[in-house]
């Protein structure tokens, strides 16, 4: 059950990757990074259930934070041209 869900989400990941590479404007790419982050969080949790070791949930929290902060950093760079 979990394995089927994992493979389905991997197909979703592939679609996002195509948009990330093809994305004409920079905002499409930022959108792809953000969507990829959310999907990776779900995938990590599912991999925990596939392998039976469900107690490694801190990974999912780290992914959420990292993709959030990376998106904010990229947006500030695009919008203000500076990071400070």
């Amino acid at each position, binding site marked *: *059950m*979990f394995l089927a*869900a994992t493979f*389905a*989400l991997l*197909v*979703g*990941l592939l*679609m*996002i990757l*195509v*948009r990330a590479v093809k994305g*004409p*404007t920079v*905002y*499409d790419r*930022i*959108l*792809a990074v*953000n*969507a990829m982050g*959310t*999907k990776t*969080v*779900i995938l990590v*949790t*599912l991999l925990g*259930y*596939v*392998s*039976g*070791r*469900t*107690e490694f*949930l801190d990974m*999912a*929290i780290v992914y*959420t*934070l990292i*993709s*959030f902060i990376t*998106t*904010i950093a990229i*947006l500030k760079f*695009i*919008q203000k041209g500076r990071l400070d």
Partner: protein
Amino acid sequence: MAWNEIVCAVLLVVGVLISLTGSLGLLRFPDFYSRLHTAGKTDSLAQLCIFVGLALIDQVTVDGVAYPVDPLIRIKLIMVALLLFFTAPTATHAITKAAMLDGVMPWKKGEPPK
């Protein structure tokens, strides 16, 4: 299959379907704002469904060995779902505002897809 595994399976299928439609929308929609519309919304709902579905499971059997799921983990799952429920829309909002300030014009019917 106990009741919780059936409900979990249903929720997983719903969550995965929503997520896939979101990704497909991201791929095929003509311009940035419509893609934003699909990817932003579906992600929040899909992860909620999947995490609530997973929280119902109390035992995972991997090639014969049944590993118990610690109740603390099931609570933590809900916490992660809530955390993601707050961060994903904030990020999507920030992207939209940045694009708007940058003057990205929404696509109109008849124009070639951007």
